[in-house]
């Protein structure tokens, strides 16, 4: 199948997810689709599969313009996909999930034997260990991912879109998947492959299209002519100049100390110390358990063992409310739409949420002018671009939204601020600005735990960098501000663990 998207655009309230994006997919190729988080990859996939309808642009299948009203139309046109979200029915058997589109029947009733026989055929291509009769909810995450891939394969379409299919499966399964994809390609299938892992893309893709901030940074360039360095610069955008900062001297008094912490999420024996005014980096790949550690600190995930000490005193924090009110800890979530902001409320309310208690006077009442006075300085300081503080946050751009979610915690005047992926999906100017800001608040004495998977950001900001892998801390790297040295040191820690692991696991 030959598939082409020409100048597709898609806007959501407050964000232009895609802006004139094109992609051309030929029969018999594996086409990588790359970009940072929030670059628009998933939106593009959802347009091709009929889940979203583009605001503008054309979609051509074998040269004919088509318009998908629903995923049904896309399937009928011969396009199947593995989406990023879990798209299985938990209470259904593996077999039924794989064949959900076209459950085989016999005299009007489901033919269970046929279901399992058919499903087995596709599942065996990837993993013989999964029982087609098991309920999906009893499977592990990796097994679910395999089932999803088998489901997409079972449609035997000539066009296959895979949005991070390898995110949670093992090396071994990835190898099996790749040889399968190559075979399908050689049989003439057109495959889109989305992954964050550069090694995988270089291993399997024939051409690559890169998105950056919802626009094309590259369209269908051959992988043979692509270098790692160039691909990264296409994704990140080289105009990004990270300001060199001198190394800082940090005070020695420890504000937050974790010793041997275990959590319900599965962290084991986590120990570290955060000092006053320090920016402590926490680096790790996706799925390493960084955000979850932050959540455990603020009480959102139960701490099951070890001790957390604040200024030397052992504490037990049960929720964010206690973290803020009793211990002056703030947490800027990476998921600003779900956790960071109340999109339907105004800028004023979103910022003031952390300080209402403080603003309230007699009878718990808040004087509106006092609230505005408390909020305005942060709107100005962060240069949040809005006609008024009464603007609904949902109507702001992504960058301005992120500024609001930061402003809220600046207003709260906390002693410890955990910042989770502060600049994902943010334009470059805002990013530089936020970096400056994080530096400033640390200088002013706030201790910052910075979580980021953006290595240059980490190197530019952190004083020390903790490396997390597989829910454990696997090392600490002093940040000498020399990008090559530091990033190599970090990756070495991660890979050292990776290499030990297969031996231990199997």
């Amino acid at each position: 199948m030959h598939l082409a998207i020409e100048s597709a655009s898609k806007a959501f309230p407050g964000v232009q997810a895609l802006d004139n994006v094109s992609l051309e997919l030929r029969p018999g190729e594996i086409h990588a689709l790359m970009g940072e988080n929030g670059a628009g990859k998933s939106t593009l996939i959802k347009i091709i599969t009929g889940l979203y309808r583009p605001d503008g642009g054309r979609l051509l299948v074998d040269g004919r313009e088509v318009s998908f009203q629903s995923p049904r139309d896309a399937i009928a046109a011969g396009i199947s996909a593995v989406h990023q979200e879990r798209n299985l029915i938990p209470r259904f058997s593996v077999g039924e999930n794989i064949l959900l589109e076209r459950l085989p029947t016999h005299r009007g009733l489901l033919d269970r034997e046929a279901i399992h026989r058919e499903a087995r055929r596709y599942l065996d291509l990837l993993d013989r260990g999964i029982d087609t009769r098991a309920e999906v909810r009893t499977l592990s995450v990796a097994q679910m991912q395999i089932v999803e891939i088998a489901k997409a394969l079972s449609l035997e379409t000539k066009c296959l879109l895979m949005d991070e299919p390898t995110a949670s499966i093992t090396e071994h399964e990835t190898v099996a998947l790749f040889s399968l994809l190559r075979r399908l390609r050689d049989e003439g299938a057109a495959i889109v492959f989305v992954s964050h892992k550069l090694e995988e893309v270089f291993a399997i893709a024939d051409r690559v299209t890169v998105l950056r901030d919802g626009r094309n940074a590259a369209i269908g360039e051959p992988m043979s002519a692509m270098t790692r360095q160039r691909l990264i610069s296409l994704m990140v955008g080289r105009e990004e100049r990270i300001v060199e900062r001198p190394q800082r001297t940090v005070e020695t008094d420890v504000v937050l100390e974790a010793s041997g912490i275990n959590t319900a999420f599965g962290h084991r024996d986590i120990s570290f110390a955060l000092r006053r005014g320090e920016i402590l980096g926490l680096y790790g790949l996706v799925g390493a358990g960084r955000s979850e550690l932050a959540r455990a600190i603020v009480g959102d995930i139960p701490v099951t063992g070890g001790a957390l000490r604040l200024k030397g005193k052992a504490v037990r924090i049960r929720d964010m409310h206690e973290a803020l009110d009793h211990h002056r800890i703030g947490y800027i979530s990476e998921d600003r739409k779900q956790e960071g902001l109340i999109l339907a409320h105004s800028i004023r309310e979103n910022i003031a949420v952390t300080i209402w208690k403080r603003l309230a006077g007699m009878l718990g009442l808040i004087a509106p002018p006092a609230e505005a006075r408390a909020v305005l300085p942060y709107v100005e300081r962060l240069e949040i671009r809005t006609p008024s503080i009464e603007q609904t946050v949902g109507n702001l751009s992504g960058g301005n939204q992120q500024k609001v979610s930061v402003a809220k915690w600046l207003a709260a005047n906390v002693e410890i601020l955990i910042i989770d992926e502060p600049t994902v999906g943010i334009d470059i100017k805002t990013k530089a600005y936020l970096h400056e800001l994080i530096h400033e608040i640390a200088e002013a004495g706030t201790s910052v735990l910075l979580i980021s998977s953006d290595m240059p950001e980490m190197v530019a900001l952190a004083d020390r960098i903790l490396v997390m892998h597989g829910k454990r801390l696997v090392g600490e790297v002093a940040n000498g501000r020399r990008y090559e040295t530091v990033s190599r040191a970090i990756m070495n820690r991660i890979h050292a663990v990776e290499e030990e692991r297969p031996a231990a696991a199997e």
Partner: protein
Amino acid sequence: MNTIFRRLLMVEWSGLLAAIILGAAVLAWLSPAFLTEFNIYVMLRSFCVALLVGFAQMVTLAVGQLNISVGALGGLVAVLAGGMMEKLGFPVAVAVPLAIGIGGLAGLLNGVLTVRTGINGFIITLATASAFTGINLGITESIPFYDMPPSLVAFGSNRFFGFPYLLIAPIVVAALLGLFLARTVPGRHLLAVGGNPQAAELSGISRDGITMLAHALSGALAGAAAVLAVAQLGSAQPTIGADWLLLSFAAPIIGGAALTGGHVSVLGTTLAVVLIALIENGMVLAKVDPYWVQFVLGALILAAVWLNRWRAVRTGMG
């Protein structure tokens, strides 16, 4: 021992079955009247309408919706059926399918309004419930239709020893519904939409169409319950359905239905209705205040919800 007990608790209807056996044993021991043919007949008869009412709610819960209007819809269908037979002289064989069909259409209306407007099904069915009741009262001015065809009344009251003929209907419906949900494509699609709407949609299942189907089915089942109620009472009372709301949720939820959709149990719902019938019967036999039924039903729902929760936490599959 402990682990066997635990495992039994994991099977959703095990607790219900145990409660039913225990309850029946206690009642048989305490009251000689319990195991008499007539008492069994009375109990089974009260079970018939209740089961269909439970099913009417169960199919909306399956798709992740709810239907506040089951009772109002039932009441409307009951008086329309009565009116057709008494005032228009329709034979039973015409009036009954027509009445159930009207129930289905009214349910479909709920579904269409919910899907097309995108408004919470709760508010839509709350509003249509009021409208259905209004039409019911407007037509009848609260006066029942008494003159029902003898064949229908006979069906509603005759019995074979302790077995009321009326019971045939819910047994057939339960079997068909079980088959529909477990073994047919639309039935599986219905549960798929309830279990993970987005996944179902991505698999090319029409979420809107299935939601409307569930509402229509709910209406038809409520209509069938109403017809049975007319047969059982021997008259078409406008008050039929007025007390169905709680029951309609109690049965599927005690039977283990997931409130979030995607999981219901025909067997569980049936056992739940048996348990409720048993409790009501026990209270009658013990000459307890009838008000206790209300209290106990509320307590049972809370207990069932708590048990489901506990089970979800135990298995780590919340």
